[in-house]
């Protein structure tokens, strides 16, 4: 059994050594995210978003040619991401890759794609330095310092008398660490006083210590940077202990997964978002409708960004056909990859995230951000993000 697998593997190897081949039809677009392992939570949402995009854009395809989303599991580690990338690039002959899930994985796998001149769009890599990995690397996930400050301004609008602020963050989560730095920076600029700084771990489950510290510091605002499970529990415990002030949640709160964690206590949390299901544009409406029909809930930012990454590739391919006046499937793969990468960085795209474009480095320019307030339903289990104006 094992031998037959190996033999098939070797055969496929030998078949794949031809040079200068054309792009196959349907046009393969790769997605390499975590479908197994301890970050599969995010990867699964990304896959759902990307699949919806595949169906949506295949109604017309790239001027009639269908695309095919090829997924490879990266698992939760760096080597897995490199393997998935190699597989997509060399074996599946994809024109571009959506992925990987974590910034740490991107630092590992993106240089590989860049050397092989394959365009990559990071759907959820928010760390500093991702687009700078190389000319073929871009992202549709706005870096944290662009998003977070909006929530603070909204909180001040709700209660202009805020002076004393508690800041809490998950210090083993790369994103939360850089997000809290942005929050603290913004606090300083707004002349607000950070009276207590509390740290926790994403693996923590008991936040009584942090909660009591916040309570005794007597603050008007608490800013929490963490992931849904730990952050949600923190909010829940803080509220249960009687904290009455405003709570700002970081980007980790930006998911419906939060609702069951803190239940009724989620009510009123302010979250700055790079994506809102309520954003008005036809693509988003259709995306949200499809998502609700399939999964009976609103899409998360992870899903929306993965959708956007696929969309950017599809529209990029259309632009390549427009400029070269040739069908993608009649062009050489390496040429398509290079042209596609150029096309991605020109002009703007109207996506579920609103109007976006990529600059020459591959960094996203996003026009609109949202601040939403969580409104829980009467059952205390489900809720929604409502945009506050």
């Amino acid at each position, binding site marked *: 059994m094992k031998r037959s*697998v190996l033999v098939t593997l070797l055969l496929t190897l030998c078949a794949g050594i*031809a040079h200068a081949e054309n792009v196959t039809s349907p046009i393969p677009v790769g997605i390499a995210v975590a479908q197994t392992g301890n970050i599969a939570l995010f990867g699964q949402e990304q896959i759902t978003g990307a699949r919806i995009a595949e169906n949506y854009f295949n109604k017309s395809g790239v001027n009639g040619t269908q695309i095919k989303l090829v997924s490879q*599991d990266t698992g939760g580690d*760096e080597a897995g991401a490199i*393997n998935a990338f*190699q597989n997509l690039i*060399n074996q599946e002959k994809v024109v571009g890759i959506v992925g990987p899930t974590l910034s740490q994985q991107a630092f590992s796998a993106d240089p*590989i794609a860049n050397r092989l001149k394959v365009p990559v769009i990071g759907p959820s890599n928010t760390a500093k330095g991702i687009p700078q990995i190389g000319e073929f690397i871009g992202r549709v996930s706005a870096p944290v310092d662009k998003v977070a400050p909006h929530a603070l301004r909204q909180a001040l609008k709700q209660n202009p008398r805020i002076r004393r602020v508690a800041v809490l963050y998950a210090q083993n989560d790369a994103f939360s660490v850089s997000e809290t730095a942005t929050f603290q920076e913004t606090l300083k600029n707004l002349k607000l006083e950070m009276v207590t700084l509390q740290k926790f771990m994403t693996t923590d489950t008991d936040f009584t210590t942090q909660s009591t510290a916040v309570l005794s510091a007597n603050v008007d605002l608490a800013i929490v940077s963490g992931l849904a499970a730990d952050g949600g529990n923190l909010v829940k415990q803080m509220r249960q202990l009687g904290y009455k002030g405003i709570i700002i949640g970081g980007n980790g709160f930006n998911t419906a997964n939060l609702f069951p964690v803190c239940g009724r206590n989620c009510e009123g949390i302010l979250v700055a978002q790079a994506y809102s299901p309520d954003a008005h544009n036809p693509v988003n409406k259709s995306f949200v409708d499809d998502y609700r029909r399939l999964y009976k809930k609103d899409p998360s930012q992870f899903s929306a960004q993965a959708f956007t990454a696929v969309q950017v590739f599809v529209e990029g391919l259309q632009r390549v056909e427009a400029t070269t006046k040739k069908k993608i499937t009649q062009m050489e793969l390496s040429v398509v990859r290079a042209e596609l990468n150029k096309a991605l960085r020109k002009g703007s795209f109207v996506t579920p995230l609103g109007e976006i474009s990529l600059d020459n480095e591959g960094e996203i320019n996003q026009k609109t951000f949202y601040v939403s307030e969580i409104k829980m339903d009467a059952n205390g289990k489900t809720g929604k993000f409502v945009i506050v104006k």
Partner: protein
Amino acid sequence: MEGFLQNYGFLLVTLVQQSLLAYSLYFPLMAGQLSLASPGFYALGGYIAAIMATVEYFAPWRNALGWCIFPLEWLIAGIISGFLALLVGIPALRLRGIYLALATIAFVEILRVICLNLEITGGAIGIFGIPQLFESRWSYILTFGPLLILTLFFSYRLDRSRVGRAFKAIREDELAADAMGINPTRYKVLAFVIGAVLAGVVGAMSAPFLNTWNARQGTFDASIAYLAYVLIGGSRSMWGPLLGGALLAALPEILRPLKDARLIINGLVLVFASIYLPQGIAGAIGRIRTITARKPGSVRSPK
């Protein structure tokens, strides 16, 4: 051939790398010591290389040495790992069997939490943009390959040397070895340090190979994975870790077509291999080849 290397070059080098890590566990096991500390030294070595390759302080060194900085990184990683192993090993190796295993698990976890919190290790994000020794992943066989050959040669010589015999005597019966004038502590620490130096050097080589380094490298899961490599490859044969490391590390990639289910099958393979290959693959091959030969005795209980 070029396509093949581009496709599977990274995987092949990974197999060599994982086999090397299996050897880092094999050497202590030769002396009967179940040490699960390898991932810790692997992580440490990687951090040392990553820091030397990226931090401003070392910039003059890098400019002066050119590519020679890489061997220097391996050397320093090996030395520091060996030194730390000495520090940890002397008290820890008073412990036996499962106690030592648990102490080394604790060591790995403590090291991981520390690395997660230090500034110089890049906190949770880690260190990225590590300068490259080679353009393509495949070329890294030029660093891992010779190290593997060296390791194989070393274990071949060790097997036949006085030290190797002392290791085996301790594994079979520590009290008897002691009575015969072998100092068990000295040899146990030596075996532990050899494993640690190897893991540290592999880590240092792996940092540029993976482009980035962070606290997610070298965790508890990895400890048990290496143990599986050695046991399923065959802990009584110098070829065991190579066989086990290469086959088991390749397994998740071979199973890739199974998508979500691949780790389920991977787990089943571990269970069935443990049951049906009790002497490991090398043991099974050996048995087939020389059925008449003396049956290798089963490994003693770690107690």
